């Protein structure tokens, strides 16, 4: 891995993997300005593939598909990132198209994209799991941009104007911090020259400060969603916990692995699935954004099992707070976590994505190594401590089920 800084201050991280047929590149734009209406960034994100000053939307789609160049943008809570993946011989073409998209998108298809987005959201909301997750995030991040879920977007979208999206685009292009990563089988100087050729006029604002506030959850919240023909209840319970920047990040990761994220051997899986037969899917997860993070537990179960499942969650959460974990279980969870990280960073694109994610967060592209050291240092006491410190009121509980089963929740 090697890092250089382009003349315009954009940091570029390279990693060379010999004998790989495809290059992968990521280009991060940090979101520093919270969106005032839900959907502003989502619409902008969609418009990035809908035409530039040089290429119409159709021409763009055609050129990418004809060369089998995978190029798209993703909008997350704290950033918009472009991903580019193509056969080695097509890389310059890919970079040229990407630079065109980044610098010259016209946003002309605004009206159409608004309509398409609304339609896609409606289709998605017919999936019970998506509806339950929507209700969960919207409420655990109430009145905060992180809570701008699909249904919140539907509330705001008709008031969004093209002019507002243009301003967001302009701000992102000119006043945000940027990071590039490239992974594949190449010579650094060659790629460096390409990046200089196509991106030297993109301004990087390294001292921009995020104006996204820290979200606050003040009291417990119960969100009930009725769906009368649902065969399964969807249950999500979550807590706001420290982020990747906190000293307890690794400890929470290990706790999450142990409780419900190691695969077939986690506590929730063994107790609620294997022993009680309550579910096919039961798990916990830990997701961190810049200003907040969530630890949550999830189960999908026959509606009459709602109470038993919630009790099952409580028993397991109480247990990890009160009964010390064994050295053996701790070590297994650490090994699981560390070993699996190899699996999730096997392809060039996964690697490019991870190193630029860390670089963008200011943690350094080599944060992965530090993280593994941090994970190795977690003790059994740390697990008990973080469980007690962070899995406590307030929480948000979301239950989707037929109405008759919701009354007693």
């Amino acid at each position, binding site marked *: 891995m090697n890092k250089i800084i382009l003349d315009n201050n954009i940091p570029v991280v390279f990693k060379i993997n010999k004998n790989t*047929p495809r290059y992968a590149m990521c280009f991060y734009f940090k979101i520093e300005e919270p969106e005032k209406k839900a959907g502003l960034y989502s619409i902008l994100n969609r418009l990035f593939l809908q035409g530039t000053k040089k290429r119409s939307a159709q021409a763009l789609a*055609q050129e990418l598909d004809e060369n089998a160049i995978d190029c798209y943008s993703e909008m997350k809570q704290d950033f918009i990132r472009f991903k580019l993946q193509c056969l080695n011989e097509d890389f310059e073409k890919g970079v040229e198209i990407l630079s065109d998209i980044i610098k010259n998108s016209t946003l002309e298809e605004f009206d159409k994209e608004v309509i398409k987005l609304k339609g896609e959201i409606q289709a998605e909301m017919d999936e019970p799991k998506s509806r339950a997750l929507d209700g969960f995030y919207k409420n655990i991040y109430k009145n905060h941009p992180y809570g701008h879920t699909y249904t919140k977007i539907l509330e705001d979208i008709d008031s969004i104007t093209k002019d507002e999206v243009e301003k967001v685009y302009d701000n992102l292009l000119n006043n945000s911090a940027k990071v590039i990563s490239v992974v594949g089988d190449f010579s650094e100087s060659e790629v460096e020259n390409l990046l200089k050729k196509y991106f030297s006029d993109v301004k990087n604002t390294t001292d921009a400060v995020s104006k996204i506030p820290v979200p606050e959850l003040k009291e417990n919240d119960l969100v009930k969603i009725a769906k009368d023909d649902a065969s399964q209840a969807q249950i999500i319970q979550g807590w706001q916990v420290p982020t990747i920047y906190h000293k307890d990040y690794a400890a929470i990761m290990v706790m999450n692995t142990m409780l419900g994220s190691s695969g*077939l051997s986690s506590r929730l899986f063994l107790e609620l699935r294997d022993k009680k037969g309550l*579910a096919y*899917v039961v798990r916990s997860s830990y997701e961190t954004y810049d200003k907040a993070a969530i630890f949550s537990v999830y189960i999908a*179960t026959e509606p009459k099992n709602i109470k038993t499942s919630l009790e099952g969650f409580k028993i397991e959460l109480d247990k990890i707070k009160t009964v010390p974990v064994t050295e053996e279980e701790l070590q297994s969870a650490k090994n*699981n976590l560390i070993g699996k990280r*190899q*699996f999730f960073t*096997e392809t060039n694109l996964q690697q490019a994505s991870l190193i630029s994610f860390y670089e963008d967060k200011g943690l350094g592209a080599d944060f992965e190594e530090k993280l593994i050291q941090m994970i190795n240092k977690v003790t059994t006491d740390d697990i008990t401590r973080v469980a007690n410190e962070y899995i406590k009121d307030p929480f948000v509980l979301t239950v989707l089920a037929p109405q008759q089963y919701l009354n007693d929740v």
Partner: protein
Amino acid sequence: MENIIKREIKYPYLTRPVEIYERQNGHKVVLAHKEGGLVNISSWVKTGSINENDKNNGISHFLEHLMFKGTHKHKAGYFDRTLESKGAIVNAATWKDYTFYYVTLPQGPDGAYFKEAIELHADMMLDPVIPEDEIGPAFTLGDDSVSQKRERHVVIEEIRMRQDQPWTKIYNSTNYNMYTKHPYKRDVIGFPETIASISRETILDYYRTHYTPNNITTIVVGDFNHEEVLKKVCDEFDFKGRENYQNPQFELDKPVHEAKYIELKGKINTGFAITGWLGPVARDVKDNIGLEMLAVILGEGQSSRLYQNLIEKAKDPIFNVVATDFYNFRDGGNFFVQANFKADKKEEALSLIKSEMDKILNNDITQQEFLKAKKKLKVRFAEGAETVSDIAENIGYYMTVCNDLDLAENYLQDLENFTLEELNSAANKYLKLENSVTTVLLPEIDKE
């Protein structure tokens, strides 16, 4: 060492040939080289819903769950716990033609994890106990007094999960109605009633019948010493003279000769539709390439016809989603067009899809579209050679569904030689409207 027949296959995008070993008992071992610290070990069994009937539908998948419930050497949980504590991903999957079990993990110090994974994987494949208390007692559906809920209930929850997914619902209906006799018509997961009542003995019988040496291919992908690993796999996979089983052949179904239409209702807000056609058998390379290309041209990506014509250029938007899919199966693949649309625009939606299909049948595919699809399939092959698990899955597909890896060796050349005329003829051979089955799912209108 036993007498083993070895062959080599030049597999595109891998740096070394793939080695296929056939043992005297018929068990096949495939070794593939991929740089990096991870290894994947998997065993593919030539059974799935293809070997089921109305009475035992779902047994292949239920057995797959129960294979994780311990052996005579190791109790339930040992396999998962031991391997996951070494950073492994362990799981399995069941489909129409096959069931496969895999472990992906770091090799560990001096390959220790790798070695242990082969031992545990072989033990699980050859010596499952399937204990009664892990299956849980048989019960009548809807009986609330059941207290000991075990794996039967887990699988029933998996069925429930699928019942709540609109796409799965209409896929199953279309799939069922595309066939007359062939076992492919059944949903792999089966019905809650069967899972609630099927006996341990029936499951064990099914295991003994189908998990035979000639029905199993074990695949190892990673960076390792081939001689050592071959010996290890052969030592661990001791079938102890287990008898072989010859898979039955099934008569291929003819497609419906008059378009079939099914309409379902649900508590949803948008409309869903899937139209399906029967496709070529897996070993028919050309026709499979043809339908794969047609799927790309019609409905993959933003430049595809359906997306451009029905979403991008639509003046009055009707569709939210429209795409295609093509699945390869041993006895004949399936081609699908899937759509989500405004619930009150069903007629328009179906007629728009029909007119797009008509255009394809009138041979109007351009050279540009043709070349785009070729390139896409080439890149997809390269993509499938990027991770140890993807490589294993592709090899597993060829070995079980296509019966051999020879088709992979020539795939890129076959693709290169494929002509636009052949593409047009594939479209006309398989995708005629009268041979299609459509299921639509629409919102239920509440009657108050």
